[in-house]
């Protein structure tokens, strides 16, 4: 358990969070190697299926990165992301998935340091929750989850 390294899929908007990740590189701001990034033009492009597909293929967490409210390059795509994310979290919970595994963050192009904080923090959170497959019967017919995972999935604390 202690050597568990969660895999995080980052679905990042081309104009803000993807650039923040570029900036983190340019300014040599190291963060957890657990993040793997997919670029989309707008966080509003992200379909719930992308998130579910990531979990199905072995992701332990999905980080959606969009522009701050009011800053969307396409006027208001990020508001649609926000709505979809809230619904998707409810769906994940109904599936027995800890909703903390899906995280939405507004990270602008200049916020490389915020990206670092979020990725490091998310990695820690996922380490604490444990691997995805342990708690999700729908992806694994035989329930093999540890008691700790159950406690984690009933945790109603909303992340910031």
């Amino acid at each position, binding site marked *: 358990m202690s050597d568990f390294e969660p895999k995080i899929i980052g679905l990042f908007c081309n104009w*803000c969070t993807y650039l923040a990740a570029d900036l983190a*590189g340019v300014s040599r701001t190291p963060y957890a190697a657990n993040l793997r990034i997919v670029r989309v033009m707008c966080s509003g492009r992200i379909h719930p299926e992308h998130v579910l597909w*990531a979990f199905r*293929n072995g992701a332990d967490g999905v980080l959606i990165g969009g522009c701050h409210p009011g800053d969307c390059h396409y006027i208001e795509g990020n508001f*649609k992301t926000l709505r979809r994310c809230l619904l998707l979290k409810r769906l994940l919970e109904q599936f027995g998935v800890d909703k903390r595994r899906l995280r939405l963050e507004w990270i602008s192009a200049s916020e490389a340091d915020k990206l670092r904080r979020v990725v490091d923090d998310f990695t820690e959170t996922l380490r604490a929750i444990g691997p995805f497959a342990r708690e999700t019967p729908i992806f694994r017919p035989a329930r093999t989850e540890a008691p700790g995972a159950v406690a984690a999935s009933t945790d109603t604390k909303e992340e910031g």
Partner: protein
Amino acid sequence: MASKNGDIPRIGVYVCHCGTNIGGQVNVPEVVAFARTLPNVVVAREYKYMCSDPGQMLIKEDIQKLNINRVVVASCSPHLHEHTFRKATLEGGRNPFLFHMANIREHVSWVTQDPEKATEKAKAIVEAAVYRIQFHEPLESKHVPVHPDVLIVGGGIAGITAALTLADAGKTVYLIERESSIGGHMAKFDKTFPTLDCASCILTPKMTTVKDHPNIHLMTYAEVLEVDGYVGNFRVKVKKKPRYVIEDRCIGCYVCIEHCVYKTPKHPSEFDEGIGLRKPIYIPFPQAVPLVAVIDPETCIEFKSGRCPKKCQKACREIVGRDAIDFTQKEEILEIQVGAVIIATGFQIFDPSRIPEYGYGRYPNVYTSLEVERLVNASGPTGGAIVLRDGRKPQSVAIIHCVGSRDRNYNPWCSRVCCMYSLKLAHLVRERTGAEVYNCYIDMRTPGKGYEEFYEKLLHEGVHFIRGKVAEVTDWTINPEEAGKLVIRVEDSLIGVVRRIPVDMVILSVGLEPRSDAEELRRLFHISCSAEGWFLERHPKLAPVSTYTDGVYIAGACQGPKDIPDAVAQAGAAAGEVLSLVDRGVIELEPNIAVIDARRCSGCHVCIALCPFSAIAFHAEENVARINEALCKGCGVCVGACPSRAISQQLFKDEQILAEIEGLLMVD
């Protein structure tokens, strides 16, 4: 596996060392060996610099000799070199969109400390790219015409320079300035460092050229209200504030000002930084362009009570015969269409009252450097005489560097110009008053042509230099020598002694800050700000005047602190970028638009309401929605919402994104 368009993918993977930038952290040979094991990969190679000519040649040769039809380059961010490699793919003989870039520098080698983890992550990203590119298909870029006119926001030296360069090239330029005259900060200065050129002597001719230029539409006292559209075709709404003086009729004769019911000026002049006074009707400075009076409704009696005898209006009508004053003027909204925008809105100075220990606002003889610029200026409130508030000539003057700059409590950055202007003010004060001048600095920063030499010159002029950050400015005196003076307490760190220096006048060399409303402007034009609030350039080195929004450029101090030569150079660069865009006449748009498959569309209307650009319309006779290609900006919001999965986004198709996700998760 055959791709959708029928051909069998033959993939070439090229992993870049980027010198040691990638190769130093990622085991590139291991990544290449791994890439060879991936499906449909025909060839995988490594090269020191893929973006170099020989690097690109590898791609072109493999396309021709090995019949490669898909190209993956694992190197830096697509924001840097996607175009380079798309072009190489095209020159090799393939559609440029049969290329995908794997970012293993910014997203891997530069941010991952453990080489093993970095290598694993790089492998995952390469695998994702290989999976994704199987679903790429040839695409055609869309070309749209570029409107030849240009908008420049901000009429300081950067905006003026850019406007003149473009107008001389025959372009129609709209120059918008918020104040009632162009000129910006430079118009307030007396001399410029290090040559001690008279600022207005070099600026005023440029200002009048702007006014007289047939290709420049100058709009002062105006602000940008709304921006719509995209590169090549911006629609901009401009608000022209009422100045209550009809611009075409006013000849700038000052008669109205002389006849104002206020016999003497009583209100602080904004242009003179509050140390000079003006009347409610005023011309900010004698060289103002346009030389047109303006009425401040906040102080004008007519606006406050409606019972002013309106002597100014009468004088204009009867003495000058122009009838230029119109108290009923309303604000005007104008709409203009342009192909490109240059933002040159400059900076604001740090407010030193935020540092209470320096006593600004509490001790009358503590000045900001900009106030002193007005004092030494021949057209300033004292006619160029450097005097204290009570009219006395100062015997001793302290100049405190780095006020608000290089200070974690305020602004961490170096404002770049303060050392040089402090030296200039030291020279001018010494020259005009003979006072003892003490420059208290942290580090003397004089990089620039002739700058160090200027510092050297000052060292021999008898100016005192004290290396140390001033702790406080106080009027608490401890001996008769200090009586009636301000005392600077500073540690002279070169001799290790804490000193008390009694002076008559203190000049605070305030730093430069982003304008407080930069955030609003940023949103209007959809550009970004750095964490400090300066407008963000596309690349700090290679695209210093471009932004991430195509067609919007930045110049001057709005991008970061800079002096006049740098602002002028940047303005020229921005004008050059605009010319290259406008003269091309057409712009190639990324073909990442959304497409509706009419056979799958159920006509539910969901996408129509979601589209932020009203690009989707419903066709009742066929019961389907259709996307107007010209209006679609390629955000993909509709794609993510279509319940029938009838919409797809080119370059970001679901199968491409899903394959990428799958590939990213294959490597542990």
